[in-house]
């Protein structure tokens, strides 16, 4: 799998005229990688992800998966939103099963697959609960399982932990990293949280704001086995500071 974003631009038509939100953004992600796109608000990062997911169209440029241009949403690109988007009328189990049902997978096979992913996200005991009975962190774990169950080529995540409290967020980071190592899923995550990006990603694309451009591509030099303790280590802090400086530079430019 190779996902390629080539010279992507997006112009929104507003009442005050055309507004450029993404300016010739190019990036790629290889099979099994964990890549973060980091940007402040106004960097068009959510728009970028929505275009990759096929929920919006680009004004110029294109997105390809294994050489095939993306023309709309599909189950090869799973998506996890920041807001809780579990179907409220379905149980945890039925939520996870939903995508397989849509694709017409036979019932027996469906049950096995759902069972497998329920355990991967550690929610086996909660299979029969409804979303409103779950905490925010649990809801996002179900959303991740629901996106993974159809075994997409790449998992797209739009600030998936943005609505969680700091402690839950930290737990979810370790959870996601562990899940990524075990399942070898390719992940592309959008975030504005520098620490989150450095902790999770192998590579980070730092975006500028208004319009969003790729300011820099940063490869993270940290061991693959990461726990929350490594956030206090010098290498981690240094890489975080480098990126914070990049973003700060952008802020100052915006004010000037």
């Amino acid at each position, binding site marked *: 799998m190779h996902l390629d974003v080539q010279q992507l631009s997006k112009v929104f038509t507003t009442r005050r005229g055309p507004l450029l939100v993404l300016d010739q953004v190019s990036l790629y992600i290889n099979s099994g990688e964990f890549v973060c796109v980091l940007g402040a608000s106004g960097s068009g990062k959510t728009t970028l992800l929505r275009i990759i997911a096929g*929920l919006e169209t680009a004004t110029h440029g294109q997105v390809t998966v294994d050489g095939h241009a993306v023309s709309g949403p599909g189950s090869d690109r799973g*998506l996890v939103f920041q807001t809780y988007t579990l179907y409220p009328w379905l149980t945890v189990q039925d939520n996870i099963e939903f*995508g397989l049902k849509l694709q017409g997978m036979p019932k027996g096979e469906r049950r096995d697959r759902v069972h497998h992913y329920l355990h991967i996200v550690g929610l086996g005991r909660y299979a029969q609960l*409804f979303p409103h009975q779950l905490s925010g962190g649990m809801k996002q774990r179900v959303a991740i399982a629901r996106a993974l169950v159809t075994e997409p080529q790449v998992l797209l995540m739009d600030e998936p932990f943005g609505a969680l409290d700091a402690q839950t967020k930290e737990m979810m980071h370790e959870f996601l990293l562990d899940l990524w190592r075990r399942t070898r899923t390719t992940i592309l995550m959008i975030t504005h949280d520098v620490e989150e990006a450095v902790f999770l990603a192998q590579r980070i694309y730092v975006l500028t704001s208004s319009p969003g451009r790729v300011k820099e591509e940063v490869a993270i030099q940290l061991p693959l086995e990461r726990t929350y303790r490594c956030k206090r280590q010098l290498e981690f802090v240094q890489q975080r500071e480098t990126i914070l400086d990049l973003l700060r530079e952008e802020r100052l430019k915006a004010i000037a």
Partner: protein
Amino acid sequence: MVKAVMSRSSLPPSVFWRIGEAIPSSLQMVLTGLSVLLPLAVWLLLANSLWADPRFLPTPQMVLTAIGRLWQQGLLANDTIASFGRVTSGFLLAAVVATPIGIAMGTFASIRALGEPIIGILRYMPAPAFIPLLIIYFGLDEAPKIALIFIGTVFFNVLMIMDAVKFIPKEFIEVTYTLGGNRRQVLLQVITPYIVPSILDTFRVNIATSWNLVIVAELIAANEGLGKRIQLAQRFFRTDEIFACLIVLGIIGLVLDLSMRFLMQRTCRWAFPKR
């Protein structure tokens, strides 16, 4: 001194005048009881006082007797069944027609553009204004009454269901596409289950309109029904029977409303999360 400053700067506590908060359940029960008992007491006092003419304002006792008499004569059950049958037929017809149209209009902007203007005009034509036309078309039998209830309810059903669909969070639809769903699946497996509680609530609200209209229809031309009973009572100056029918109508409405709520909470538990 300190106390005076405190009371001026902070909100004084209250139980009765709390805004947007629940009241204690004991107070709730007392107020609920008063809501019915207070008007009843006023009626009791007024009707039994010296200035009241019982021919115009019957006492609660007289009305109770009238209800018993109508029941014993078999008229009350007969009339209630007749009215109920008309409401049920007219309303079910309106529900069956309105639900798919409302969902389609809420889902597709194109269907909405096609349907909304004409329904916007039609719903402002008062349904009773159609009665003469309906009598010309359908005669004096059941058909014009059912048609009246249908006309009076169907457009409101459509518009309210349409609005419910419009407010479905876009993310539910988008996430379904990314799970490999097509438009047909979004319509039938996401939008439809999502709005079932709203549809039931729409029915609960609009069935009241159906009850209004069945009485209107029966006042004009009918052989039986609660509206007909009221009209006959007027002819014979039986205000006690008019009051009796009004009370029966109120009770039927309350029972209908409560059973619709019950049905809704039973079938759509997910929409009523307990705290």
